Structure formats: C-alpha cells, structure tokens
C-alpha cells in the first residue's frame, strides 16, 4: 500500500517542487513542505505569498503545473478522491447557501461525505453543541455574522471526522467569542492526534498555537521549523537602530559599513520601508556599548536604539528585508480579488 516509504509514516503532507502559475503571474516557485502527523502546523506569510494556492493544491481543488503532492501516504494528484475523504477543509472565503439553514447545510455536507443516517444525526448534534451553535443553527445562513459562518464552516469541515484539517486564515474577521471557540476547538483536536494545517498572516496566532511553522514568501518557503527554532536560528538578540528619524539610503549604507566591522554583529538588514532603519542580529553583552562608541567615533547621531528577543517578525524581516506588515501593505493595492475569483473559478 505504502508506496512512499517510511516518510509517509511520519509526514501527513509531503509537497515537493510545487510550481503554479496563473497566466503570467507565478504563484509558487518550487515549493517544498513536509508536515508531520499530529502537529498543528502554521503557514505564515503576507498576502500574496502563496498560502491559498498551496492549500488549494493540498485539498485537490487546484492542480499544480509541476511537483508532487502526497497526503497521508496517498498521491493527491492520482487519487484525489481518497484524499478528499480524509481531509476537512475550511476555506478562506466561507461559501454558504444563504437560503439554507445552518442545519440543512450540515445535513447536505454529511450526505456528500456519505455518513450513515445515525452517524449523521450524531455528528451534527455533537458539532452544534461543541461550537455552541444551538441558538441560531435553524436560522437561514443569510442572517449569520462572519463569526457564525466561520463556525458553521468549521463544523462542516469536521463532520466526517477527518484525520487532517486544513484551514485557510480561519480567524480573519472573527469576533472575539468566535475566535476563542475556534482556538479551543483546534487545541482539543490536536490533543486527539488530528493533524492541523492553518495559514495566517497574523504572527501572534502562529507563534502561540503552532508546533511547527513555515514562512512563505513569494511562492517559496524561506524558513521552516518550530517557532523557537526559527527565532534561535537568528542566533542572538535583535537590535533596531535609527541614526535619525528619517534617514536615507546613502546614510544607512554608510552606517552599515561602520557596524559591519564590529565583533558580535552577525547580520545587518536595511529596512527600506521603515525610514531606512537598520536591523541587526547581535551576540554578546558587549556589543551595544561598542556599537554606540563606534557610531559616535564615526560622527553618526543615534535617534533610537533598542534591543529585544527576536520575534517571528524579525525572522521574516531578516529573510526578506521587510516586515510582514509592510509586505502586506505593499501587496494590498496590487491584487484584483474579483478577477482572481473569476480566473480561479472551477
């Protein structure tokens, strides 16, 4: 049965060399990813990084131009139906039928997954209770708030008790109550051994929840590991330096040359989007005083200097030269979601 060897005993999802283009836009550039069984795996990246494309490929909704997709030991490109049986999917855009009630939608879902009549009733009752949907489940979906829709969608995705749950930005636009319910449920599922893959562009979420994570940027995995590993890989503390409030490129390059020669400064990135501030990774206690001394010697002022434990944002910044927030802003105006919806329509 297991044509993919021992790897598939350990990994729930194995993606190799995924390429995907939409017309002239390339979304994925040879993406590799391994997601171990039983883990809550976070996919972090700014808007446009390729999270949804990756997830749609895993869930058999999108065929890659090249590369391989193995889910639970099954080749998803050859046997998509087996894969569909085993995974629950909560899409980024919740698709509901406004005329149906929540319960009717769950019943439809149960039949599409071929649950028996008794199982169907049992699971629907259970999910309604578990996600606290009792008071509104018999109202039409058209009247639901974003949080209610998301909870309904989550219930639908879990109805057939999948081994793998895939969620695309599950907490975007959620009210606090719904967010709490969703997180609690995900923790509980994880404790039962269910593998969870979720994408997000919220750092905090991934940092707190995920066992492992990958950072996606422009269709590639630029960092992978546990959140702590990723931060430790930066190897030291994180320092932000501004010589003045708004510097320019020339000046920050000069400053960089000065800093480059200091012992214990491991990496320097010029943050163009933040007034050419400099982000350094430093090791050792003596670096900061040394740094002040050198800057003064070279006649540079110091507007701000701060040292902190690295965050995931620093990991991202170090890899791309941009903070996640800025990457987000940079892409915001460029995407035509209507056009994409039309082109991506199946």
């Amino acid at each position, binding site marked *: 049965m297991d044509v993919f060897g021992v790897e598939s005993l350990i990994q729930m999802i194995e993606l190799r060399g995924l390429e995907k283009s939409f017309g002239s836009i390339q979304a994925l550039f040879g993406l590799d990813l391994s997601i171990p069984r039983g883990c809550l795996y976070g996919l972090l990246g700014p808007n446009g990084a390729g999270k949804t494309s990756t997830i749609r490929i895993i*869930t*058999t*909704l999108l*065929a890659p131009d090249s590369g391989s997709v193995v889910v639970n030991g099954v080749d998803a490109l050859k*046997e*998509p*139906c*087996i894969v*569909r*049986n085993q*995974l629950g*999917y909560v*899409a980024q*855009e919740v*698709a*509901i*039928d406004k*005329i*149906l009630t929540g319960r*009717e939608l769950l*019943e*439809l*879902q149960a*039949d*599409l*997954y*071929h649950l028996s009549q008794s199982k169907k009733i049992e699971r629907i009752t259970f999910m309604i209770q578990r996600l606290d949907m009792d008071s509104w489940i018999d109202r039409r979906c058209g009247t639901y708030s974003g949080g209610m829709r998301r909870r309904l969608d989550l219930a*639908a995705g879990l109805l057939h008790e999948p081994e793998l749950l895939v969620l695309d930005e599950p907490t975007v636009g959620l009210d606090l109550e719904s967010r709490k319910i969703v997180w609690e449920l995900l923790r509980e599922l994880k404790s039962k051994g269910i593998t969870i893959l979720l994408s997000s562009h919220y750092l905090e979420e991934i940092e707190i929840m995920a066992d492992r994570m990958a950072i996606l940027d422009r269709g590639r995995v630029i960092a992978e590991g546990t959140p702590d590993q990723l931060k430790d890989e930066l190897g030291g503390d994180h320092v932000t330096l501004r010589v003045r409030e708004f510097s320019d490129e020339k000046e920050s390059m000069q400053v960089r040359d000065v800093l480059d020669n200091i012992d214990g400064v491991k990496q320097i990135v010029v943050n163009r989007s933040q007034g050419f501030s400099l982000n350094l990774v430093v090791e050792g206690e003596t670096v900061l005083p040394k740094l002040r001394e050198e800057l003064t010697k070279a006649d540079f002022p110091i507007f701000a200097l701060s040292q902190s434990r690295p965050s995931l944002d620093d990991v991202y910044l170090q890899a791309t030269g941009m903070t996640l927030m800025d990457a987000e802003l940079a892409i915001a105006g460029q995407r035509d979601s209507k056009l994409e*919806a*039309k082109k991506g*329509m*199946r």
Partner: protein
Amino acid sequence: MTSQITGQFDSVTARSQWIEISQETLALTRRLFIQLVRRPSTLIAGILQPLIWLLLFGALFSKAPEGLIPGGTSYGSFLGAGVIVFTAFSGALNAGLPVMFDREFGFLNRLLVAPLRSRSSIIFSSVIYMTSISLIQSFAIMVTAALIGYGWPGLSGLSIVIVTLLLLVFSVTALSLGLAFTLPGHIELIAVIFVANLPLLFASTALAPLSFMPIWLGWLASLNPLTFAIEPIRAAYSGPLDLNAVLINAPYGAVNGYGCLSVLMALSFGLFFLISPMLNRKLA
C-alpha cells in the same frame, strides 16, 4: 487499486457506489427543492408564463379558417404540445444558471472538495429537479388547455408527455450544465440562453406545421430536437396514440413516433456521455 480486488468484492463496492451516488444526488436535489420552496416566485412565473402563451396565441388564431392545420384540429389544441415542450426546453436551458452562481460564489468548491462518488450526481440532481418542475408546468398547461376546450391527451398521452419531457429535459439540462462549467461567467451563459431560445422555438413545429414552412426552414425544423419532442405529444392530443404512425414528413424522409423518441434518447445519451467525463476532467 481495484485491480486486485475479487469479483465478489467488486459487486459489493458497485452496490455501495450506487447507494452513495443516490445519497449525494438526493442531498443535492433536496437543496434545489428547498430553494424553490423558499423562493417560489420563479416557479409561479414559470407556471403563469406558458398559460399566458397558450391563451394569447390561442386567441390570436381563434378565427383562423377551419382546416388551416392539417388533420382538422383547432389551432389551440395544435399549440398545446408546442407550449408544453417549449416551456420544458427553456426551463432546462436555464438549469445551468444555479450551478454557474455556485461556481461564482464558491459554493461549488464545497462539492468539489467532497469525495463525491461521481460528479454526475450534480447533473442527476439538476435533471430530477428540472423534470419535476417541467411536469408540474406541463400539467398546469394541459389542465388549462382542457378547460378552454382544446382537449385532453388521455392516459397514453400523459405517459408520452412524461417520457418525452424526461428525455428532452435530460439532454438540455446536461447541455446547460456543460455550458455552465465551460463558459467564463453567468453573463455569457445568459447570453447563450438568450440567443438559443427563441430561434429554436421558431425553427420548430411548435407554432406552425412543417407544411407551412419554406424548404430551408422545413429542413431546420425537422432537424430541431424540439420538433421530435413536440410531434409525439401532439399526436397524443389528436387521437389514440400510435407510435408507428408517421409523425414528421421531413424533407429527408418520414419519421414515426419511435423514430422521434429514439432521436431524443440518442441525444440524451450522447450529451450525457459527452459532458459527464468533461465535468470530471474539468473539475479533477
């Protein structure tokens, strides 16, 4: 995978396959009917419109000379069959629209990510739904026609109406779903429906017999699937039904009742086997 499985196991899986396909199909059909019940305006309009056709067209030709229509029937009873078939046809032609909206609103993804045994379930559910609606509409038309005095086709007539409509609705629904999955959006689909609808009506024997038509139109009408659906129903209206009797005196030769039904049957199977694999491939 299935290659190593024994024959006995195969028949079990085949059985469960059909159970699963009917479970999917029923669930999808149920959704369509819930939508219909909660949004009944389309059904009401769909029943009223053909009745208005029947009344207005019937009245328009009510003073037509006796014997205008070959066989001595009144224009009203001549028209009944045409209205029944045309109503079913345009209804089925619209069957792709809800699917197109499901595509556009992303609801279809819910179906595509589910392990459907066969995506033909999507076609089957639409066909069941459309056929039921057409039967309701036809029944309303037939009752109205009877009340105005255009006659009643009798029991054999009723059964021929059901068989003919089933075949016609099946093929046109399959076609419409095929379009719904290939055209880029609902605007294009509506345009195709709009362009196809009336010409197919006029180039058929719905409103006038073949003998009234110039040669070229006669050719078109006797190739038009609508004609093959209209004539058996019309024959049922004009007397005891005999499927061996010649119903269409086409330029290429005579076609009897069985011929008409065979053409519709061939069309249904042809379109289904053309479009069903296309859905599975397109949606793979």
